[in-house]
């Protein structure tokens, strides 16, 4: 029983971090119809920022004070400087943006490798490898911190989208851009804001991932797998969907290993998700 609980809880904690990484990716895909392949690479960039600050004694959680505003501005700049000019040239934006952002991800990987070297980095803090003991359960503090960041960030994004006027404008643009424009919603501002928030959330995800995982310039390729997984299963553009999918992926992966060999866990996971997508091709929460 202790093993089941341990597997379930650590699965949910890591799943929430995937959800955090997928949230911004899903938002951009849903609102702007851009498959932003560079999203996890930006999270890796944030992880390096955390590493840099941690080496100077700044706790990763405190580094959010720098990372969040910086990445928000980066997101706005990314939209204004890269995506908007590409969109104005016409063509299939989904395809064009996918190729464009894939190229940017490769370029960012090379820049990070040039600056930091290709070797892996590990953020060590006082609570790394420590756990909160709850009866038979050992909850790694880094995982708890990552899950906490995920909860706060996704909740803030959710409240913003559902309870504020700019947030409702973002949703309106996602659901019906022409209708939103007729209601005097400034599409450019709203989209710019969406990018800012999404990339800021990638920054937070980078902080959470740096607490748990080692990373290198090429790590974004590994993280991209999880991003696609949770966004497609959850339903493109759905924050609730991303959260549920993240938790589902984390819990299923860990729990399945208790009854089947660990090597079969990815097969079990992808087979389950395949069945799920056959039943709901648009994902769990996309209407």
């Amino acid at each position, binding site marked *: 029983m202790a093993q089941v609980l341990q597997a379930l809880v650590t699965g949910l904690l890591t799943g929430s971090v995937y959800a955090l990484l997928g949230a911004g990716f899903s938002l951009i895909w849903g609102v702007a119809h851009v498959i932003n392949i560079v999203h996890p690479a930006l999270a890796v960039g944030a992880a390096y920022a955390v590493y840099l600050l941690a080496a100077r004694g700044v706790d990763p959680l405190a580094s959010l004070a720098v990372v969040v505003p910086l990445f928000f501005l980066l997101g706005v700049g990314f939209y204004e400087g890269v995506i908007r000019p590409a969109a104005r040239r016409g063509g299939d934006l989904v395809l064009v943006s996918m190729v464009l952002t894939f190229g940017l991800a490769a370029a960012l990987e090379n820049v990070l490798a040039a600056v930091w070297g*290709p070797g*892996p980095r590990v953020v060590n803090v006082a609570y790394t490898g420590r756990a909160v003991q709850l009866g038979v359960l*050992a909850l790694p503090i880094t995982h708890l911190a990552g899950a906490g960041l995920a909860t706060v960030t996704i909740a803030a994004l959710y409240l913003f989208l559902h309870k504020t006027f700019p947030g409702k404008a973002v949703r309106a643009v996602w659901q019906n851009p022409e209708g939103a424009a007729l209601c005097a919603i400034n599409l450019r501002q709203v989209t710019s804001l969406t990018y800012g928030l999404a990339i800021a959330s990638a920054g937070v995800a980078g902080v959470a991932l740096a607490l*748990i995982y*080692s990373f290198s310039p090429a790590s974004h390729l*590994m993280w991209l797998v999880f991003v696609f997984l949770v966004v497609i299963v959850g339903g493109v553009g759905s924050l609730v969907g991303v959260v549920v999918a993240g938790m589902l992926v*984390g819990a299923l992966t*860990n729990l399945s290993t208790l009854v089947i060999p*660990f090597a079969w866990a*990815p097969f079990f996971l992808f087979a389950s998700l395949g069945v799920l997508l056959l039943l709901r091709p648009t994902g769990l929460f996309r209407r």
Partner: protein
Amino acid sequence: MRLSRRQVLKSAALGAGALAVPRVLTHGAWAQARPIRLGGTLPLTGPFADTGVWVERGYRYWAEKVNRQGGLLGRPVEVTILDDASSVDRAVSLLERLITVDRVDLILGGYPGTAAAAQMALVERYRKVYISMGGHMASFRRGFKFSFGGPPLMGQWWYEGAWRWLSNIPKAQRPTRAAAITVNNPVGMSARESIQDGLKRLEIPLVMDELYDLPLASAEPLVSRARALGADMFLANGFFPDGVLTMRAMKALDYNPKVILQAIGTLIPEWVTQLGPDGDYVVSGTAIHHRLPYPGIAELNQVARERWNLKWAPLYFLFGYAWAQVLQQAVEAAKSLSHAVLVRYMRETTFKTIAGELRFDERGLPAPYEYATQVINGEVELIWPPGRRSAQPVYPKPPWRR
């Protein structure tokens, strides 16, 4: 016979000229000689770049040294390394381009094992000598004639030193139950091959033997099962990222086996520099080590200190240098760049390298190595064989530092 002053001066000038001409000609000839071109591919970007760059540095330092010492067969060497971006397909197509389009004279071995194994099949077709880590034992069982592990990175031999070290511990103090987790790819599977046999020799039952695919998202389920099964020996046959996750999970769950064996993660300097004390006491194997007494090791340690501010030459730097060193010795002894001549020579002689003396058998392999290492206080120390020990092994592993 009396010589006039003019005749003396003329003779002196002619003599001086005669002495000077060969030197001028020799130097000019070396400088103008067509360089010997060596080419290969390495993962300079992508997931294997962290180690690929060190192999490249090993090759480049070797070339620099050879050129400084007058070249190979009296000709300068020129190294071309193409970035295969950690893709096996690219490693093969780029190497084929180097052979057929660029027509390099000699081939430098690729990395990692998956790329090397694929390139071994390619060079066999073009009949080119290829010295690399190989793709573990499976790649040397394919009957290739042109490929050599000089030295190889052989998963099947990896724990041999550790088994021997453990067999010297009194039986009552040895671990009693082992748990193993292995990355599900050729590297991990090669290391796993030796586990059954090694543990059988030590009479230690393997109570858990799990495979996992990369990326490993969470190590806690594996570690908590090993702990629940009472395994006091833990084998983690994985790379750096999954190795870090595993070590942290072991610490968080306060799992303290008597010994932790780790196959690959400890091979890069980051295990020590990045993971810090949490990476201590892990036992592994090696084919080369910066503390071995072979000629050239001290010089390479010095280079690593001066150029990269490292205490020791990293393992893959040593590997790259050793592979090039074997090729150099083959060319110098055979006095030929003909691959047909070189391949004959490769199996007939003993090579003196920074990895010790290597003599290749029919498969292209040297004798198995039996080194065991342990990370002790942030240093990768040699703990086996006893005659090569750089530090006393720490056993059992102390509990995690809190």
